[in-house]
């Protein structure tokens, strides 16, 4: 079932799921899995929940909402729903969609996604020898390009301003606050809870304008009247490139939510592009997919089988063999997913004695932030685990008064939150080593609350004004030519938060 944003795909499929005897709804994000579960409950269908970090068992329930990575392959169901199928093309997570679409044990499978993913779905159906019915839905409220470029000062209530890095989002937020606007923000480093809270502030009018990265494109119900791009180029992890028509349609499609706005408008800031370009992109047909081999990656069964075959207990050895010899780059049917991080973790874990192959594989799949020294931290945790020691949860660190917090403190809190996500993920898999789940939950909540409180501060922050972003002259016109991903290379001697007698502190023992 394909259709653009706001075409009612989820609604239609959830109705079918609710009418089924048993069912499974697979979502790309934890919060969306919650929303699927709530949708089923609101239809009178009891449902459980399974995500990487939490489980909710509803006794007797025959429906389950889960994240795609948690797809249960051993429990047959009547109907399954897999959302955001265009994620099949995502180099990091695409393999989870391939495995779910090919392997979910369902009699009927609803695959929801943007029209661009149709050829890949057809290819998978062909590989599986499965029949495929294609249903195409149209957008319910029309989407159009604005007739003129927009100035920052002209942004109005209901506008979402799109940027492509955390730094740009925070810069634009600071500029808008200077102009007297009330602002909410959404970017990838924020936890789903904080994103949802910011979305709620925007939806209920507490904030007039939403400044967001393309994280907005998935998983949030937002009542946006107009989407305004602050730039039409983005850094994609490798290079700075123009946005594709599909990206403009996917992000711009968030404008004009059905039932709230008659139509959706997509615009661009004056210095970043022209309305004519937006109009052209919105009208462009789906770009043909040149790579039709679905992404796959091994799971623990495969890892074990390969290890037996090559007679090793080394995860590194198994992954090297898979990469070099099992699923080679020239395979005609499948592509091996980008497993660089798993490979790095496996490589570092080779020196930890006392962990089995499957345990190592679990660690290799743990969601960590490599830029936050995540691999060494994980090795430390694994080492404690292997030695039979309990691994204490990460602390919150010093949380200064939200009014005193600058970007550095905010970034630290975001990093600490990610560490807690990784710890909680492991605690669901190694409950005997990662025992203090309650403290982890409390620390997570404390960080979420603190980050929310910082983002709620609507006063102009001098700290932010002093530090102009690349391509921006303080107080002057913005330019958008030299965007790079944000990296904070300042030493601890610089920019430390001032010592504050009112400092809030909540620290729990633990590595990092």
């Amino acid at each position, binding site marked *: 079932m394909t259709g653009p944003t706001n075409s009612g795909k989820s609604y239609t499929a959830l109705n079918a799921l609710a009418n089924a*005897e048993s069912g499974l709804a697979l979502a790309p994000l934890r919060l969306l899995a919650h929303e699927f579960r709530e949708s089923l409950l609101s239809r009178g269908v009891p449902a459980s929940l399974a995500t990487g970090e939490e489980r909710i068992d509803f006794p007797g329930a025959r429906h389950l909402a889960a994240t795609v990575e948690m797809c249960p*392959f051993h429990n*047959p169901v*009547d109907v399954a729903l897999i959302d955001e199928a265009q994620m099949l093309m995502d180099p990091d997570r695409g393999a989870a969609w391939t*495995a779910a679409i*090919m*392997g979910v*044990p*369902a*009699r009927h499978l609803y695959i929801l996604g943007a029209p661009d993913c149709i050829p890949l779905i057809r290819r998978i159906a062909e*590989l*599986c*020898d499965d029949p495929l019915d294609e249903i195409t839905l149209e957008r319910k409220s029309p989407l159009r390009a604005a007739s003129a470029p927009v100035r920052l000062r002209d942004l109005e209530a209901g506008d979402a301003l799109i940027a492509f890095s955390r730094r740009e989002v925070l810069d634009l937020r600071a500029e808008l606050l200077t102009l007297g606007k009330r602002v909410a923000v959404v970017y990838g480093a924020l936890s789903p809870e904080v994103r949802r809270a910011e979305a709620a502030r925007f939806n209920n009018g507490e904030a007039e304008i939403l400044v967001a990265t393309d994280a907005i494109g998935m998983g949030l119900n937002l009542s946006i009247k107009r989407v305004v791009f602050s730039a039409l180029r983005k850094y994609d992890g490798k290079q700075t490139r123009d946005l594709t028509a599909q990206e403009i349609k996917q992000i711009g499609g968030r404008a004009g939510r059905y039932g709230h706005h008659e139509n959706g408008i997509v615009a661009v800031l004056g210095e970043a592009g022209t309305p004519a370009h937006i109009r052209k992109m919105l009208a462009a047909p789906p770009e043909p997919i040149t790579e039709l081999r679905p992404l*796959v990656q*091994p799971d623990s*069964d*495969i890892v074990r089988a*390969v290890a037996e*075959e*090559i007679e*090793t207990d*080394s995860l*590194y*050895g198994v992954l*090297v063999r898979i990469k*070099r*010899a*099992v*699923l*080679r780059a020239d*395979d005609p*049917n*499948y592509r091996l997913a980008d497993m660089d991080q798993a490979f790095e973790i496996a*490589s*570092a874990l*080779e*020196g*930890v004695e006392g962990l089995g192959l499957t345990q190592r594989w679990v660690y290799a799949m743990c969601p960590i932030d490599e830029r*936050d*020294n995540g691999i*060494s931290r994980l*090795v430390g945790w694994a*080492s404690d685990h292997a030695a039979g020691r309990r691994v204490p949860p990460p*602390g919150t*660190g*010093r949380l200064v008064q939200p009014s005193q917090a600058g970007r550095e403190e905010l970034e630290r809190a975001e990093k600490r939150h990610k560490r807690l996500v990784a710890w909680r993920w492991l605690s669901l898999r190694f409950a005997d080593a990662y025992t203090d789940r309650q403290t982890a939950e409390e620390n997570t909540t404390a960080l979420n609350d603190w980050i929310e409180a910082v983002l709620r501060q609507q006063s102009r922050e001098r700290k932010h004004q002093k530090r102009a972003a690349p391509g921006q002259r303080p107080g002057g016109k913005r330019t958008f030519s030299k965007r790079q991903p944000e990296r*904070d*290379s300042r*030493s*601890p*001697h*610089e920019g*430390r938060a*001032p*010592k504050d007698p009112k400092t809030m*502190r909540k*620290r729990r*023992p*633990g590595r*990092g």
Partner: protein
Amino acid sequence: MDSARSPADHALALAIEDTGLSPTPKEEPRLLKLIARNLVPGAERILPSEYERLLCDVRRKDWAAQLMNATRRAGELWISKADILDAVGRVHDPRAGLDLLRNTLNDTLAGRLREMGHTPRDVLEAVQADLSDAGTFLSGGQIDRLAQIVASAFGVEDTGFEAELIASEKARREEEERIEARAEARRKRENERLKAWEESLVGFDQVPAILHCTPREALRWIAENRLPVTRRTPQPDGTEKFEFDPEILKRLRAQLAEWRGGARGTPASRAARSVMPSLHAWQLLIVMWRIFARRAHSSDASRW
């Protein structure tokens, strides 16, 4: 009184006489400004204590710079600029030398460290975590030094705790080094195994002899994805050089009779075989297994 001199100049000269404290030429302009601002109208001198206070204010920036240089030279990365500014704000003696400044900074730092956690160990971890957040990692010697400072801040430096803290840090570092060394050795071993295996691969010309088949049969089975090609290397003439794992070929001998007489299989089974070109074990694995699991389940109509 020299009529060309301002009241502030005059007050400064008197203060120098009273206290014996002279500003440097660099300090003098700012000091004069502060004296002018603080001089009671009509008065010709300022109190010595007031003069000392103003001189301290003038000297704080330089003191902070001295401390900043000293801490950087000593590699004390846990001392922040805020600590230094806090410390120099507590110095009220304009005669202060580096020793007094350093002692004040140590007291300030000790106060901050005590606020950072309930136990020295918590504090040590918290400081390291803060530094790690900022992308800074301490060397072994720096961690030892920090452990001493933390122990001293908690007044446990003579209780053996400091030694215990340093010993546990040392043990942790040694463990990290052991883990890295073991990892390195195991990676090397696995790479050598892989290399040896790759060197054991055979070309197409040896396949008929190993399988006891004709070259034409071997080519057909390759096309049907029955014979796993372990490595395909593009050649300059546009063709590909095929290499095979002799161990897998030997294991496949038992299936040759079936292949010679049987069907080509479904497109799905052929595709699934092709996912695992080099390892027979893959035939048991993910794609095929899942497809079959789903199909078996779907065809069980009685369940629905």
